[in-house]
Each structure stands twice: as structure tokens, then as C-alpha cells.
């Protein structure tokens, strides 16, 4: 039976791991290579690196980070943040990444999904969607934001998820901007809606605070994987503790 994945996310800026609250107020949380090694030993199922570096010089540092990490940990690695074209993607895959996640560039230029999938296979292309709720009645509606959550697009998140998959995305990394950084639980309704709407795996992101949050995202949200950052970086819970908790509650987990 396929197990549910527990995925620590490392937001990397100029070679350091940082994590913000609702996309602002960054705090230093450590060295990405050391953290990756720790997560590997604790039994993480995958690692996601989001490069939030703004400058081209800083961008080279994430390549170095991926190269070092892939020499030391033998698990799937996904890299995203600022990837604009197929050659950016290739650079990350050659550095040792297994998958690339694209967000802003895909919204601005949807054909990038098709090109990436044709070159590297759908299994390599993760569509990252930052969604914010804009209506709650009669039906909830979520809008896609780009440029690190700075820019609304007017695009419906559910339609965009479907379109991305039709273009060749093999997985959806779904972040609720409303929930992200607050550690008060994932947006279950958003996760459930997108997960039911697309035939590919969905990674729920944003809002993990206690182990039950992850449980609810998997069971009620129907997510295939859950991403968390702060609760792992600051050692609120170890990966092992979370996995044990989920396993005891009947979730298929790799222990």
C-alpha cells in the first residue's frame, strides 16, 4: 500500500533556511545541508527546497545546496522558487533534484508546464499553487497568487490546478496563504476540493501546528502528502513523533 508522505520544506535564502509567517518576518532556522541530513535520519519521505533568494548570485547558492544535499541524503528532492524556463529546470535536475516546482512562471506562461513535462516527464513537474480564499458563499472560491504571494491573478485555483495537470504537471503542491505560517491547521476545504478535482497527487501545505493537523489534511483533506516547515525546524515535533502518531491513527506510513 502506498504510504502517505511527510515532507519537511526548507525555504532557502542565500544558502540559509528561513521560514516566515504569512510570507513576511523571516527568522533564521539553520543550515540546509545539516537540516536535510537530520530529516533524512528522522525518516522524512521527501524534502522540498523553496528558493526565495532574490538575486542571481544568491541563486547559485541553491544549486550548491542541492548538490551537497544529494551527496548525503538518498531520498527524493524537489526544488522550486524562481525557475523561469526549461534550462533553469535542467540546472536543478542536474544538481541532483528529482522534481522541480514551478509557480509564477507557469501562471505567466502556462506552456512552460508542457515544455518541462515533454523534456523531463510529468513526474518531474510539480505545479505549486498559492491560493487565498476570496469568497465563502454560496460556494468557497480561492484565487491564485503569484510572486511569493504578492500578486493576485484573478485566476480560480481549482480551474488552474486542473489546467496545469492537463498541460502535464504530475503533482500539485498546494499552499493555503490564509493558513500558512499560523500553525492553526491546514485549509481542509481547499485541500479536499483540489485533491478531488485532479487525478495527480496533492501535497497539502500551510498551517501545520500539531500532529492532528497533518492527520486531518490526509483524512479529511484527502491529501497524498503533507508538507510542514516550522514544526520541524524548531523541533516542536520530530518527524518520527509525527509519523508514529499518524501510524497509530491508522494512516499508512513508512516507519
Amino acid at each position, binding site marked *: 500500500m502506498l504510504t502517505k*508522505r511527510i515532507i519537511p520544506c526548507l525555504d532557502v535564502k542565500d544558502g540559509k533556511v528561513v521560514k516566515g509567517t504569512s510570507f513576511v518576518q523571516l527568522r533564521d532556522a539553520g543550515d540546509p545541508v545539516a537540516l536535510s541530513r537530520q530529516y533524512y535520519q528522522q525518516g522524512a519521505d521527501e524534502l522540498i527546497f523553496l528558493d526565495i533568494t532574490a538575486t542571481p548570485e544568491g541563486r547559485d547558492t541553491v544549486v550548491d545546496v542541492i548538490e551537497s544535499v544529494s551527496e548525503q541524503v*538518498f531520498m*527524493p528532492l524537489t526544488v522550486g522558487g524562481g525557475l523561469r524556463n526549461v534550462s533553469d529546470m535542467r540546472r536543478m535536475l542536474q544538481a541532483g533534484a528529482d522534481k522541480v516546482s514551478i509557480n509564477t512562471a507557469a501562471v505567466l506562461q502556462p506552456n512552460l508546464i508542457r515544455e518541462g513535462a515533454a*523534456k523531463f516527464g510529468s*513526474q*518531474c513537474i510539480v505545479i505549486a499553487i498559492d491560493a487565498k480564499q476570496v469568497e465563502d458563499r454560496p460556494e468557497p472560491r480561492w484565487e491564485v497568487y503569484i510572486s511569493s504571494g504578492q500578486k493576485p491573478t484573478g485566476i480560480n485555483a481549482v480551474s488552474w490546478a486542473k489546467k496545469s495537470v492537463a498541460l502535464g504537471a504530475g503533482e500539485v503542491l498546494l499552499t493555503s496563504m490564509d493558513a500558512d505560517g499560523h500553525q492553526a491547521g491546514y485549509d481542509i476545504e481547499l485541500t479536499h476540493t483540489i485533491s478531488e478535482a485532479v*487525478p495527480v497527487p496533492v501535497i497539502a501545505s500551510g498551517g501545520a501546528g500539531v500532529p492532528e493537523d497533518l492527520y486531518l489534511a490526509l483524512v479529511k483533506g484527502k491529501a497524498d502528502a503533507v508538507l510542514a516547515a516550522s514544526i520541524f525546524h524548531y523541533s516542536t515535533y520530530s518527524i518520527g513523533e509525527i509519523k508514529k502518531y499518524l501510524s497509530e491513527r491508522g494512516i499508512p506510513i513508512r516507519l
Partner: protein
Amino acid sequence: MIVIVDYGAGNLRSVTNALVRLGYQPKITGRPQDLSNARAVILPGVGAAADTMINLNQLGLIDPIRRFITDGRPFFGVCMGLQILFTGTEEGGWHECLNVIPGQVKKLPDGQKIPHIGWNQVKQQRDHPVFSGIPDEANFYFVHSYYGEPEDKRLIAGETEYGTTICSVIARENMVATQFHPEKSGESGLKMYHNFLKLIAKGS
């Protein structure tokens, strides 16, 4: 010399890193003559089957790979490196493959998320040296949408459940192929490469 076949696709770096961790210094090459000198060949791969066959053909690698396997020399195919051993695949219309293993590559059945991404258990169907020290039903990392069905069921060394029973490990003497990625499967994956490479040390 251990050769990792470079045909312009695939995550070669991860396979290389895994072998380096185990103390080997593999050669990454796409030259046919390097295969004839190799003590073992690893064929990694992601992406589409048709592209893989086109790339191998352009590099003149089709016959050298076939010969390497039929000569009974140590060969390890990973993911797409398993699928292209079959007679053909239905991925993107029917495409002929290497036909080292009679059988077809089919799309995973509907009813669950596709691609099959994540860690899943491998049920060992019989003893083989590659399983040495790896518990039955150990988890390995999968990422694929198609799977191979060998006509000769005796080739199936490991199986995995995902909507149907997938042949996840093929083994025949010195030929091993896995649908999952050992280089991404933590310590169990490293152990599997270690076991495979010990086949060479034995001179078999």
C-alpha cells in the same frame, strides 16, 4: 569498471552519489565501447520510453545493451531502465523497446492517483542476492505511470500493490531491474545497490 549509462536524460547524479557513498567510482558514459569493457552496467532513467529508445539508438547503445544482458553480465535497470527491457510499451502509442524480456509495459489502472508517487512496499517473491539483508515488505520510492508485465512470471522477484499488482523487481541471474529508485530509497536502496555490486566481486 562500473558504467552508468548516460543517454542525455535521467537523474544520473543521484545514482552516481549512491555508488560513491558505497565506495565505488562509477564511470558515466554513453560510449558503446565502454559497455564492452564494463564489469557492470547500470541503466537509470526517467522521462518517456519513446525518447529513451531514440536516445539509445542515436548513441548506438541498443545492441551493446542487449548483448551485455544476454551475455549474462551484471546489469541493473532503474525505472525507465526496467521498462525499456520489455518487448514494447503502450506509453504514447505503441513503441517497441529492447525485447530482452518478453512482455508489455502498460498504463497503471484508473481509480487511484497517477503517477504512483511515494514509498510503497516490495513483497519479495523469491530469494535473490539483491534482497540480502533487506526485510520483506521494505519500502522503496516509486514514481511512475506505467508498469511492465513479463510473460515469464518466474522473472518476477518483487511485487508491489497499487491498484493492481505491479512487478517491481525483475531478476534473472545477473540481470536486475527495479521499477522504484534505489538511489532515492534510503538505506534499503543503498543496500540493494551494494548487494548487486557484490555480484561482481564474486566474479559471477
